[in-house]
């Protein structure tokens, strides 16, 4: 599509904006969120154009129908006509007008801008930076290969608000502990992978929605034109936590972004350094509880009782029933015996947290730091009525990681 044509479309859209509710000055709660990428601008333009066209078509159709029901009611038109098809060349020509119009609307008015943005969307070349996005049940993980940093991003809305026991924050269900940070005015290529089921990465302000399919690397791109915080959600049903894995993107100016990168690098280095520390049981328990509530409680529940049929309890000695596949896996790992949850060996416990249990919903938590893994395992083995008294130190986790 040539530049002139684009200009023509923009002008048409500006005219359309006059009647279109989609261009109301304030972006209201019933409207598209503020577009901040080239694709989002394109899509909003197409959307506005569409709304105008279908509003005109609908008004014409409804107008004709209403006119007919009034003018051709039995009271006003007691003698019905008897025609049942177009007669003569003139009528045939007249009859074909709506269909010719529809063809033009389909393939010219709507088709050309659509082709333009489909091709633009598919072009992920010449990106200045690549970020890897991994979808898990039910959180997102972001990695910046060039900077050697990466982290998980979990819903930070407290359970009490979801259960309606506490007043809700402004960004209820659309807030995370660790947002994805991206620079503005740079073309960023997102590579998307899933470790379990199909998810979809969707940030309305970016105009992109990309399914994340296990077994594939999908890609898409953004080029954000305004600093700010943009909120989105998983858009493909991925199980019970589907509503609870939001995406929050903080866009910073390139300078601020570089500063954030170095802060993040030193923060992660500090976390790695703690892997050599030795912590007391009390320290590990406190930290483990926080890690548990943030990462594990969605499935295993805050009280450690799991969910019958789906997620095993952490509390030992409780009955559990689920798919044969899961029960067999738990049994072979030593965490299930005689229909009850058992306390398996520490080595297997570490392995489960680091690598997940293939064939079950239990994901790998290797994105957690060694300290967090050690803490959460210590916590799990000494909470919910479990009293092994064992203390798992970060060094054990590091050893298990390197042994694998």
């Amino acid at each position: 599509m040539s530049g002139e044509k684009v200009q023509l479309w923009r002008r048409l859209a500006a005219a359309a904006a006059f009647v279109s509710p989609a261009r109301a000055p304030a972006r209201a709660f019933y409207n598209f969120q503020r577009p901040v990428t080239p694709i989002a601008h394109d899509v909003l333009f197409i959307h506005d154009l569409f709304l105008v066209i279908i509003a005109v078509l609908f008004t014409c159709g409804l107008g004709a129908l209403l006119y007919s029901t009034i003018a051709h009611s039995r009271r006003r038109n007691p003698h019905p006509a008897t025609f049942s098809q177009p007669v003569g060349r003139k009528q045939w020509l007249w009859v074909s007008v709506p269909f010719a119009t529809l063809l033009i609307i389909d393939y010219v008015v709507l088709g050309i801008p659509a082709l333009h943005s489909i091709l633009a969307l598919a072009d992920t070349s010449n990106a200045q930076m690549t970020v890897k996005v991994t979808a898990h049940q039910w959180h997102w993980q972001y990695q910046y290969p060039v900077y050697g940093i990466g982290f998980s991003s979990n819903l930070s809305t407290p359970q009490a608000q979801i259960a309606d026991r506490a007043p809700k924050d402004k960004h209820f269900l659309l807030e995370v502990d660790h947002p994805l940070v991206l620079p503005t005015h740079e073309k960023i290529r997102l590579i998307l992978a899933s470790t379990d089921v199909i998810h979809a990465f969707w940030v309305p302000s970016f105009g992109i929605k990309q399914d994340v399919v296990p077994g594939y690397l999908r890609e898409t791109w953004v080029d954000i034109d305004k600093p700010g915080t943009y909120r989105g959600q998983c858009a493909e049903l991925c199980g019970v936590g589907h509503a609870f894995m939001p995406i929050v993107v903080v866009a910073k100016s390139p300078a601020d972004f570089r500063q954030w990168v170095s802060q993040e690098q030193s923060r992660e280095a500090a976390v790695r350094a703690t892997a050599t520390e030795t912590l007391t049981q009390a320290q590990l328990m406190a930290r483990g509880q926080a890690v548990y509530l943030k990462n594990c409680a969605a499935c295993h529940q805050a009280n450690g009782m799991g969910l019958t049929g789906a997620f095993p309890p952490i509390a030992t000695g409780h009955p559990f029933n689920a798919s044969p596949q899961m029960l067999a896996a738990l049994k072979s790992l030593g965490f299930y015996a005689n229909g009850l949850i058992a306390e398996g060996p520490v080595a297997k416990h570490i392995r489960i947290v680091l690598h997940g249990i293939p064939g079950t919903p239990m994901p790998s938590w290797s994105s957690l730091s060694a300290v967090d893994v050690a803490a959460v395992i210590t916590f799990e083995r000494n909470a919910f009525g479990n009293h092994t008294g064992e203390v798992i130190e970060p060094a054990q986790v590091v050893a298990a990681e390197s042994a694998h």
Partner: protein
Amino acid sequence: MSAVKPAAAHPDEHHEPPRGITRWLYATNHKDIGTMYLVFGTLMLFVGGLLAELIRSELMTPAMRVLSPEAYNQVITVHGLVMVFAAVMPLTAGLANYLIPLMIGAPDMALPRLNNWGFWLLPPAAILLVLPWGLKLFGIGTGTIDTGWTMYAPLSTQSGPGADFAFVAVLLLGLSSTMASINILVTILNQRAPGMTLMQVPLFAWSWVITALLLIAVFPALMAGSIMQITDRHFGTHFFSAAGGGDPVLWEHIFWFFGHPEVYILLLPTAGVLPHVLSTFARKPVYGYEAQVYSFWAIGLMSIVVWAHHMFTSGMPAAANIYFMLSTMAISIPVAVLFFCWFGTLWRGSMTFETPMLFALGYIVLFGIGGLTGLVLSDAAADQQYHNTYFLVAHFHYALFGGPVMGLFAAIYYYLPKMTGRMFSERLGRWHFWLTIIAFNVVFMPQFLLGIAGMPRRIPDYALQFAPLNMVSSLGAFVLGATQLLFLYNVLQTVFGRSGAKASDRVWEGAQGLEFTLPSPPPFHTFSTPPVIE
């Protein structure tokens, strides 16, 4: 049953239906089987409706109040499966069984015993969908399937035993639909009254020719896919598991290869009823009969090659997205031809607005909105923003409630006096129509806006900016649901109450067609001697 005399001994006395439960269990009479389909479909319409009310109760306000996330996913899944497979399809099949032999002057369906089997596979399938909830009460399993009606792998592989019940239900439904389709096709091709050419076959029957062909073409794909799902779940195959070299997107292709034509399978039969109703109450011949027949063919054929427009965000290459966009846009032409013909039938007619006519006009308006927003969704670029949002939910409810369900109401009100010999309460019918069309728009118009504002579908809980419109939508849903009780009361009152005026043979002043040459209600056996077609 003592009332049944051996047909061989007294062939000419075999006029009365058998009595008791065996009349229905052993039914081979097309009117009996048609009636059973209609009763079953109506019952399931209310089951599906009840599930919809549960969904809207949960979504009325933010926070989890009514259902748990697990239960919510199960409720939306069964709502979808029940409405598509157990409500709308059986209702359209019921109309086909009851009406097509009457419309083409045939004594019965061509394959009456197949017909019996086709129906009796349905109740077990419906039971399989809801039975896991019952089992859960006894601590067995985790409830029913919770993947959404699209049953995407590998979520379906993770799902509890309810998924197995659902896949077996799909197999039964597939057998049932395929048999019913073969029967309808054979009946229309072979059992027409002498002298009735194919291009004289009433449009409702024509719409079922295409519907039946589509079902025979695409349902086996879904059945094969369901078997693959079952073997993935239990026998270690990896058709849809990436870890074993399989492909989750393959299921999406299989499902939508079936799922898109399914939309037209739901739609076409009522698009076929519409011209009958419009022409009757406009007192004017059907406009563009041939154009409508050819449009049915065009819609049917095109619907098989556009499936992946449901997958614009799945990561297909740009070339595939462009192909599926352009081919989808092409369907707007034959659909527009249908609209044009409906308008042409009304134009300069002499209209009255009895209940069936009101629903037929409501169909045109609501389905029009569904169609126009479908045009929007066909845009592969903009679809990035609409896909899997409430915009999509609103769109397909305008298309499937606005189309098939409004069309079914029109058809049921139109033919009920013919079937029962009694008129229904016109007053209640009008109340039903106006409350339905107003409440329907209150439910689903806000959902377009919610989708545009960024609310994904299939979430049990949502952010605060979506709260006001969800409240409106839920309140509308409660009114819409309650309104349908008027319909139920009106139908039951007509069938059992015997208070309505007696219906004449023609029922409606402008009604045309062989079915209106018969008494109301028609005797158990009709057209044993074929009618004469001029």
